């Protein structure tokens, strides 16, 4: 017979008394533990908030490592708060501790992969690491991610992130990707002067000055006394090949701000271009041909410094010295300009070092000529 199956009572009556005492002790402990747990929750929440504020203050002072320590302390006291790990990630990012920042933010993103702010911070980490594909990936997740309604609304955050991505692409001279980001921005961005001017400048970097021009025009209409807008308009028109309009804009900018050296320099450039440009409207055939000849002369002189182009330079010089009848002026102006364009392109390829900043007017005119002679470009 098993011991437990005996009819002998296993227990004394003290068992029931003990059970009663245990039950009472249990209830007392539940009460005590509840009070202690509530106290702990309250005190740790206070401590976490204090640490977080200290961290924010240290961030503003630029003491990012100390701020990270404060944020870690805040996290230890309030594990469920998602704001603290994000702040830690940003502090670590600013402190240059990129691997740790990535690790911290990865945890946040594991919890919610579409959270906007962690994705943005992650994008910044990869941008700092020069891992641009990853950075773009996280920027896009941030753009299409979730953002809290405060302090900014979600749309404002998304625009801000897209601008940041656009700046990154501009810095990398990724024109096509940049243009892809700017087109939606043009629809969504606020209409304030700074934002629109920033957008217009980014369009110019993206190689789309035609989109920048109307923006600057709108801004100039809204505030005709803004010299920076006039200067920006001048740059856009210059880039767009509208040298006369550019000249007008630069003059306006200098009238509003005479000490603007950049505008003055750009005005000089535009005037040089206007004097060089054989495709300028209103020129007669004689003048158009003369300008074409002059341009070919300039290009040949520069190309003479590039030995591999000896044959082409000789051909150019032959073309320059050739006599042309008045009836052939127009046709010859075009062929001369085409020759100059080809020689310039060859020089750019063979001897790029020979081309300097002072050649900008010539380069601009030749670029315009190349576009007009070959519309597919």
């Amino acid at each position, binding site marked *: 017979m098993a011991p437990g199956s005996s009819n002998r009572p*296993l227990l*004394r009556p003290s068992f029931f008394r003990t059970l009663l005492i245990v039950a009472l002790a249990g209830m007392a402990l539940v009460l005590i533990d509840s009070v202690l747990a509530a106290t702990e929750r309250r005190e740790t929440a206070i401590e976490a908030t204090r640490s977080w504020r200290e961290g924010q203050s240290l961030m503003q002072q630029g003491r990012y490592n100390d701020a990270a320590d404060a944020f870690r302390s805040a996290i230890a006291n309030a594990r469920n708060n998602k704001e603290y790990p994000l702040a830690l990630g940003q502090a670590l990012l600013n402190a240059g501790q990129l*691997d740790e920042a990535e690790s911290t933010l990865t945890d946040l993103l594991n919890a919610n992969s579409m959270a906007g702010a962690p994705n943005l911070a992650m994008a910044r980490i990869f941008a700092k690491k020069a891992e641009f594909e990853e950075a773009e990936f996280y920027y896009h997740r941030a753009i299409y991610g979730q953002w809290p309604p405060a302090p900014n609304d979600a749309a404002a955050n998304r625009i801000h992130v897209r601008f940041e991505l656009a700046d990154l692409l501009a810095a990398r001279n990724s024109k096509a990707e940049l243009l892809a980001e700017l087109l939606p921005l043009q629809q969504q961005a606020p209409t304030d002067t700074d934002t629109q001017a920033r957008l217009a400048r980014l369009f110019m970097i993206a190689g789309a000055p035609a989109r920048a021009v109307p923006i600057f025009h709108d801004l100039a209409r809204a505030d005709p006394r803004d010299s920076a807008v006039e200067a920006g308009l001048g740059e856009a028109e210059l880039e767009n090949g509208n040298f006369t309009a550019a000249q007008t804009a630069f003059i306006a900018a200098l009238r509003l701000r005479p000490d603007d050296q950049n505008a003055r320099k750009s005005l000089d450039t535009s005037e040089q271009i206007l004097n060089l440009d054989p495709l300028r409207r209103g020129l007669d055939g004689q003048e158009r041909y003369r300008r074409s000849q002059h341009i070919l002369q300039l290009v040949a002189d520069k190309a003479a410094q590039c030995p591999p182009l000896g044959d082409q330079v000789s051909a150019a010089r032959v073309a320059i010295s050739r006599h042309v009848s008045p009836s052939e002026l127009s046709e010859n102006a075009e062929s001369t300009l085409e020759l100059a364009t080809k020689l310039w392109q060859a020089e750019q390829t063979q001897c790029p070092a020979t081309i300097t900043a002072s050649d900008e007017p010539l380069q601009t005119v030749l670029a315009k000529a190349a576009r007009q002679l070959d519309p597919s470009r």
Partner: protein
Amino acid sequence: MTPSPAVSTSRLHAWLEELRQSENQLTLLLSLVVGVLVGLVTVGFILVTGRLAAHMYPAGGSGWRRILVPTLGSLSTGFLLARYFPFARGSGIPQTKFALVVNDGIITFRTIVGKLLCCSTSLASGIALGREGPSVQIGAGVASVIGRNSGLRTEQVKALLPVGCSAALAAAFNTPIAAVMFTLEEIMGDLHATVLGTAVLSSAASWMVLHYFLGDDPLFHVPAYRLVHPAELAVYAVLGIVGGLASVVFVKLLLGMRARFLRLPAKTVWLHPVVGGLTVGLLGYFFPDVMGVGYSFVDRVLNGDAVLKVVVLLGILKIVATATCYASGNAGGIFGPSLFIGAMAGAATGGVAHKLFPGITAGPGAYALVGMGTAFAGIIRTPFTSVIMIFELTRDYTIIVPLMISNTIAYFISQKLQRETIYDALARQDGVHLPSAHAHGPSGPGNVRKVMRPATLTLPARTTVQEALGAVEGSAVEAWPVTAEQGFRGMIRRTDMANAIARESGGITLAAVLDELNGGMELENFTHLHPDHSLHLALERMGSSGLGVLPVVSRASVRQLMGIVVLEDVLKAYGVAGQTPAPHTAEVS
């Protein structure tokens, strides 16, 4: 239709009577009750310690506080431990094993109160010890008090102790599975122990209590680590070596320091903990992360915030601080510090490896994680528990294989360089011989208790050799126990006495002969057996000592002679013996 109150009362009485009659149901009910109650006590212990610590070290507090608070804390607990709660000293694991193996499962209510009070004070004051070991003793104590006051038999009370241990560890570490494993592996010394079911039940109940009050938050928050390259396993093997060596250094330092403290005069015992408090205070003044159990710093290291110089320095300082705190008699355990030491050893190893082989190794955080388990396996010597525990602490499965490799190596090194486990060695320093897994040995034909004879012929130590030889005349055995006022002194053989007469004279006392034979060796190291030792071990010890008769002594004190074991009786139990000599009944008075 709702039953009347009289019917309900009658049904309740019937159910209670049925419960009284059924041991299985009773065991399950008590396991549940113990689990819940121990969970509540442990949660309270954690919260009280945490709040006390927060108030002792407020944010922006002066650096001097780090010296003053642990010194005063250890002074106050030193007095309480010496004056009121002598059994609440130290970790609690050896004390629990002592209660289970030797003391009929008795842990007093006073010890529980003392443990709670002293540990809360010392841990909150920044003493570099952990809360988990003490929780185990508290849990076992709660189970013991409930069991004894319920009128259970001694065996039933003893069966309830592991249930309390399991519940306590589940709540203290937030590791319900590892708690059961530890109870079986370390407390019971048997992974197949019959208490498995009840231990699981109490562990689950306690863990649910913890969750109810403190939520579902792991002790450490670890990023997802993975094995970067198969070659990385070699680095984890190196970590096993580093962790094993660090474990041995820690254990030897702790035991060596404790042996020195134990030699100091008994009247100074209340002052000993101050040495630990002052040491940790001075170290903490310069390196605050050395203080307390240090889990927050471990969490940072696990997340990769590990500067090589800092983790090496903190690992070394923690070994010194914890060894001093424990050896000097402060209340607190070594579980937590083991994890800290392991995490630092791991982060240091991982940091070096990552600098040398950045392409094929993970960051230091992954190694810190594995290092925790490695040091736990090396120091506590519970390899299964350490693997499960790290998994439960971190909830990260991917690092388990490197952890197993590293653990095994650390365990092997630790076992080679420090044969006795730390808890057995600590108990031995207190004169208690706890059973090891080896002592239980293969089942064979039984244990020593089965063949033990009463020591009917004992020789007083003051007896002369000449008198003793006369007294043993006609005895069939070849050696006899010698006793003195303080208890058992050792065994003396006829040849030992004959040699003494040849060298000196018959007037020499047995005490002098034993002193000469032992050559100043501690009595505790004399060959002996305990009643629960296997006959296999008895044969082994007889063979290695060349003695055909061995004394059987109590585990509580080797000076308490319980009987003798004779070779012939052991062989007979194996079924290969001839005649058993008749016991000699004469006694020299």
